[in-house]
């Protein structure tokens, strides 16, 4: 069985701050990390390998050369092989072009039985790439997995789907997107790190290697574009009221009264 985990390198948006004076993002010192949910997807793949035995786990990313570092981390965590789709022509892709490129790379490293993705990346935040890859490949998708049971021929998945929990099963090949509730990712071990740097490496795939249609990749293949960006405006009047508990409590009561929100009985 061959499992491929798609992995995106992202800026750690937990660390992103806004410069209030200039209204721009401050990147200074914000590290590039493996998208958190992708770590859970990788963990899920490694668990299936441990359970079923004869399983190869490959990781795949599309991104600039430095995304190779994140794939190296995945190899240290135990992935068997890593591919980076890396080409100037891939840059500026929206989700349609990203999914197409990743799907073509998957065809190149085929046969693939199970594709695991994170549900959502913490920078673009769209949660669209997984379902779009599945459509490109014409295979079933199951999203927001919280439990995966895989066999040689099929997967059964339990998902938190808003107000309901669902159990969905499909024959392989299939694509599953996972959320954080599914597992607790392992840590790197010295042995894993040594093995990755000694025996493994990241293999590059260019647009030539994966035989893409140049009209469907990167900027050219992206129907959406950003017209403008701005920092959300959340400011209000900001009146500060000081005093003892009684004064403050009365102040709040006055506001409730003014808004006609004080219950009468």
């Amino acid at each position: 069985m061959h499992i491929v985990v798609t992995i995106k390198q992202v800026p750690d948006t937990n660390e992103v701050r806004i410069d209030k004076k200039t209204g721009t993002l401050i990147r200074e010192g914000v590290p590039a990390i493996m998208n958190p949910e992708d770590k859970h997807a990788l963990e899920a793949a490694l668990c299936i390998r441990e359970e079923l035995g004869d399983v190869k786990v490959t990781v795949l990313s599309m991104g600039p050369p430095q995304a190779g570092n994140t794939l190296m981390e995945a190899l240290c965590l135990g992935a068997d092989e890593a591919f980076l789709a890396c080409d100037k022509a891939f840059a500026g892709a929206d989700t349609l072009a990203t999914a197409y490129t990743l799907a073509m790379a998957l065809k190149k490293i085929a046969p693939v039985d199970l594709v695991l993705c994170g549900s959502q990346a913490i920078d673009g935040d769209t949660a669209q790439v997984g379902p779009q890859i599945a459509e490109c490949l014409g295979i079933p998708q199951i999203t927001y997995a919280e439990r995966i049971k895989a066999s040689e021929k099929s997967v059964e998945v339990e998902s938190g789907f808003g107000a309901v929990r669902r159990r969905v099963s499909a024959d392989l090949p299939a694509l599953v997107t996972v959320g954080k509730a599914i597992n607790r990712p392992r840590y790197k071990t010295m042995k894993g790190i040594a093995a990755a740097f000694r025996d493994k490496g990241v293999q590059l795939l260019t647009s030539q290697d994966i035989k893409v249609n140049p009209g469907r990749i990167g900027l050219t293949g992206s129907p959406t574009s950003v017209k403008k960006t701005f920092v959300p405006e959340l400011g209000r009047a900001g009146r500060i009221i000081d005093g003892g508990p009684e004064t403050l409590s009365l102040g709040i009561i006055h506001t409730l009264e003014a808004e006609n929100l004080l219950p009468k009985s």
Partner: protein
Amino acid sequence: MSIIIDTDICTGCKRCIPACPYDALAMEGKKAVRTPACTGCGACLDACKYSAISLAGGQGRIKMDITGFSGIYVFIETLGGAISEGSLEILGKARELADSDAASRKTSRVTAVLPGHALDRMPEELIALGADHVIIIDDPRLAVYRTDYYTRVITDVIREKMPEIILFGATPLGRDLAPRIANRIKTGLTADCTGLSLCSKDGILLQTRPAFGGNIMATIVCPDNRPQMATVRPGVMRRAKRDSNRIGTTETMALTLGKKDDLIRHVEVVENTKDAIDFEDARIIIAGGRGIKGPEGFELLGKLAAALGARIGATRAAVEAGWISRAHQIGQTGKTVRPDLYIACGVSGSIQHMAGVMGAGRIIAVNSDRNAPICEMADETYVGDLFSILPELTREITERKTTAA
């Protein structure tokens, strides 16, 4: 998406370099240049004081013929025999767009697309709440949502009717379905929008959404492909005023399935976890953050909420500490709410939390730190210890109620 740096205007001031979340800008000679790591996210635009950086669409993009497309379509999600509130909000927004000054012949008609089974009186309801036309696809095979059949049926509607715009809820279902459809049609899809309007110049849909964990807002367009597709965050838009005299038409379409449409073997709903907290009709919401310090703190909030007839919200910090269930979480990754009054207790005012309460009529904060970020985002901040203020407030309100009665 891509950025262009005008080297004639660039002064080499380097302000844009630290603004890039991808470390993708560098200096070459005395000018800023983009490196291959650039994703075209646009975060650098505001950093440039000289407007040397602009965004550009794709050059030589394969364009499709977009002339025959018209109408605003809304995908209607149902659950347990009822239309989801989120779908009605989007319908209200679609109505507002269609009635706005910027609407044209292409965007003046609203169609609700209603797939499912045993749909009863839902079409009339949709017309009363803003639809001009309802397409009904009633089939027992659509009773439980499945990606494969729903993709087929909505794709058929799009291919036959050629909508100018089609909107989905940014619910788990909508975010499972819409990307699959967009990919089959090969058009753009904007995720999780919190703002929609029609451009007064060319009538295209301006789709505004948060990205980078809510730290930045981006307005996205899909100029050359149709339909323009978006998922819309629940809780942000308002449903239209109900008008039972509104006139609309209905039509039925059939579900036709081919061999390729049978992708999923089995789907079942194993548990109905419908969370009990209904923020929809809450006039007051009282939220607790890390400053609440524990489950006991939420009991304190509970007493005040009971006295005021309010609902209880929470920050992610409070939820992750295990003090209250996730159903109470408000913000970017929780619920979006719009009460008349929001009372935030022991909440610092992170951008991700406040993104969920932007639409509140009035925001009051109770915080011991007069420099907490929330002081600038609330209408009023009461500076003090919530453990002494809240019991006093509860006592005062209860006392007034008993004297009034």
